[in-house]
């Protein structure tokens, strides 16, 4: 008689199940000797620590760097690698991916002017260069396809690695290449010693037609490798000025704020909330204050309970009010944080709401729970504007999905409702942006992505002529003199400023080459805030955009300042 399978018909008791899981995990995870040997090889090839400035964050003081040291390790993983050892990054894939990206968001690198024919820069002078050799045999154990020869069509030395922005504009912005050191660029003629993710390992990668695999190496066996890069030799050798020349570079100021940034005009600081700059060493959610003038960063842990420590539930929006309090939205609650005392109060909206959006009885689950079709697990819809929070004086106003009213929370945490018309009620699949400025409430209208402007009682007084682009319905109040116009995000690098009548008063285009993700598309920032100088501040996800929302939310993000008029 056949023994039953480990988990089949006869369900095992709990202890037995535990043992079975243990046995399976041990067997599944056990590495073989080759894998261990490869890791030891990796350890022996670690870069010289003295020569390895891992990342410079302009304006961030050393103590902040020290505090964020662990974060950097995690950012290595989150950014796809800015380390000094080999790593595969695929900034662009197929030509079709490029055209798709171009149609939805014109890239600043596109130039219709015919370019002069330029020969590839000769790689011969570099064949004995250690960096060149490293590009032939990058030390990446699990991708090791060394032993072969990989013909090179071009090589050029960059006096400063950051010149990649001009020499290889197709790469977009790559944080890992923002190093002020000489670097060698090697362009493979065909196959490269780069793992082809789609093929059994080890297999070298064959770039798509018309594109190249590129290696960029600092001193030491630590090149970075890029799939399918569009290379123009004139840009690469510097003989033709790149369209990205002179463009402002995003300035990465901090890592780790999870989902939102807000400008606090009273204190002239930014606030963000999420796992914080020490996120990787502590799962506690943090509220973070960043002073752009001094670079000072201060963090406070939010109250610890099951809601806030869950890695699957992350804080959503953060806003500062006129009383100096910071309001933070969370899937389960809204928190009012007092930076002066470090204490916070909160109100659980799912408890106080009388009904769900459909009029049914209160659910034990918050109404903004979204399903598991994308992420294989439940995710709460707080982070990309599904649930938005704004401050109005010393109160907070909250928009929730499937809810026919806005919720106003007073400084005493008392909750009142502002009814809104049905066309303004967002579902979980809609973006929902909210701001309060000049006594008016600005709220995205899901049906046409325009901005409805409401009086304090919730009645619509105007609708914007400008639509926010799908997926970018973030709003932000931009101080300009005494006015309180609202900036509507309309695309990757575009925004529209509207006034209280919904009229467009300014079009804003920030010519910045945002990074490309694995699908070749530019990676848009997903939050915007503006400071007193009219600088725009973006919260930019570093996870590839083709990974669904859930990963982008929990991915390590960058706070980036971009000066539109450098």
């Amino acid at each position, binding site marked *: 008689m*056949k023994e039953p399978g*480990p988990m089949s018909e006869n369900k095992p008791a709990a202890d037995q199940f535990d043992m079975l899981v*243990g*046995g*399976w995990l041990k067997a599944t995870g056990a590495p073989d000797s080759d*894998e261990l040997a490869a890791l030891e090889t990796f350890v022996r090839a670690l870069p010289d620590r003295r020569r390895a400035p891992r990342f410079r964050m302009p304006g961030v003081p050393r103590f902040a760097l020290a505090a964020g*040291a662990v974060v950097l*390790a995690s950012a290595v993983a989150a950014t796809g690698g800015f380390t000094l050892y080999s790593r595969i990054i695929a900034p662009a894939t197929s030509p079709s991916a490029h055209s798709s990206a171009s149609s939805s968001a014109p890239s600043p690198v596109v130039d219709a002017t015919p370019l002069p024919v330029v020969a590839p820069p000769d790689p011969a002078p570099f064949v004995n260069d250690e960096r060149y050799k490293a590009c032939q045999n990058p030390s990446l154990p699990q991708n090791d396809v060394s032993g072969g020869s990989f013909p090179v069509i071009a090589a050029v030395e960059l006096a400063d690695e950051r010149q990649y922005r001009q020499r290889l504009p197709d790469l977009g912005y790559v944080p890992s290449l923002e190093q002020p050191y000489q670097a060698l660029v090697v362009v493979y003629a065909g196959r490269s010693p780069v793992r082809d993710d789609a093929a059994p*390992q080890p297999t070298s990668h064959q770039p798509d037609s018309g594109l190249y695999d590129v290696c960029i190496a600092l001193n030491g066996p630590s090149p970075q490798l890029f799939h399918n890069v569009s290379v123009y030799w004139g840009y690469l050798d510097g003989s033709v000025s790149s369209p990205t020349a002179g463009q402002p570079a995003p300035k990465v100021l901090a890592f780790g704020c999870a989902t939102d940034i807000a400008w606090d005009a009273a204190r002239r600081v930014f606030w963000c909330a999420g796992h914080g700059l020490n996120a990787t060493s502590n799962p506690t959610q943090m509220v973070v204050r960043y002073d752009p003038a001094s670079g000072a960063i201060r963090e406070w842990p939010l109250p610890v309970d099951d809601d806030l420590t869950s890695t699957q539930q992350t804080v959503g929006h953060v806003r500062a009010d006129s009383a100096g309090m910071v309001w933070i939205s969370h899937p389960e609650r809204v928190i009012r944080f007092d930076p002066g005392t470090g204490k916070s109060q909160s109100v659980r909206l799912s408890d106080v709401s009388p009904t769900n959006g459909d009029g049914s009885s209160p659910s034990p689950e918050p109404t903004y729970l979204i399903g598991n079709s994308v992420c294989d697990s439940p995710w709460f819809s707080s982070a990309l504007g599904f649930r938005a929070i704004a401050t109005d004086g010393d109160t907070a106003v909250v928009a929730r999905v499937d809810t026919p009213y806005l919720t106003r929370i007073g400084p005493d945490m008392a909750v009142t409702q502002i009814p809104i018309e049905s066309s303004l009620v967002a579902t979980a699949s809609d973006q929902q942006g909210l701001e309060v400025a000049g006594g008016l409430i600005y709220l995205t209208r899901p049906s046409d992505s325009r901005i409805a402007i409401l009086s304090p009682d919730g009645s619509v007084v105007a609708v914007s002529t400008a639509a926010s682009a799908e997926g970018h319905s973030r709003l932000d109040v931009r101080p300009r003199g005494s006015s309180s116009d609202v900036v509507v995000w309309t695309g990757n690098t575009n925004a529209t400023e509207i006034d209280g009548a919904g009229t467009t008063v300014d079009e804003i285009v920030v010519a910045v080459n945002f990074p490309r993700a694995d699908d070749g598309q530019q990676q848009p920032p997903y939050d915007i805030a503006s400071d007193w100088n009219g600088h725009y501040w973006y919260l930019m996800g570093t996870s590839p955009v083709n990974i669904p929302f859930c990963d982008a939310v929990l991915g390590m993000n960058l706070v980036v300042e971009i000066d539109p008029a450098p």
Partner: protein
Amino acid sequence: MLERTIEYQSELGSLVAASRDGDRDAFCRLVRPHLSAALATAGVIAGSHADGADAMQNALLAAWQDIGTLREPDAFPAWFRRLVVRAAVDVARRRRHVLELNLAIEWPGTDLEDLLDRRRLRRAFNRLAPKDRVVLALRHVWDLPGAEMAIQLGVPEGTVKSRVHAALRRLRAAYEAEDRR
């Protein structure tokens, strides 16, 4: 084995000090005893051997770069475990769509039914949140006792038990859901 462990413990201080000074050989000796369990754990949390290796590279690099911040050499194993778990969780979150646990393992039994069961278990495990994978991996792959898991996770030992129990409960529920598909 015991002698080796004692020898390693006695050398821990000097290995950490030498690693701080940039001695790669010392660093290699420092991490070597942990590599097997670390790589296995990282692979289980990250979802595949390749991603586990990727996470291990990140963890090793972070350990190499940041070992100067480690004040107590005796804390190295726990500190290194934290780096490994953190790196693996990061990879898991970034690549949660990648599922590639080793199906070729002979465990236990070889018939088709067992194979299908293992596949169900694999799919169920891959549906777990990283935090659940972490507790199960620390318990079953790194073989940490409850007290050390408590230190590792920064929670009381009783909480560790409840987390393990909850993770197993979710795994079992996911497995049974797979069974019904």
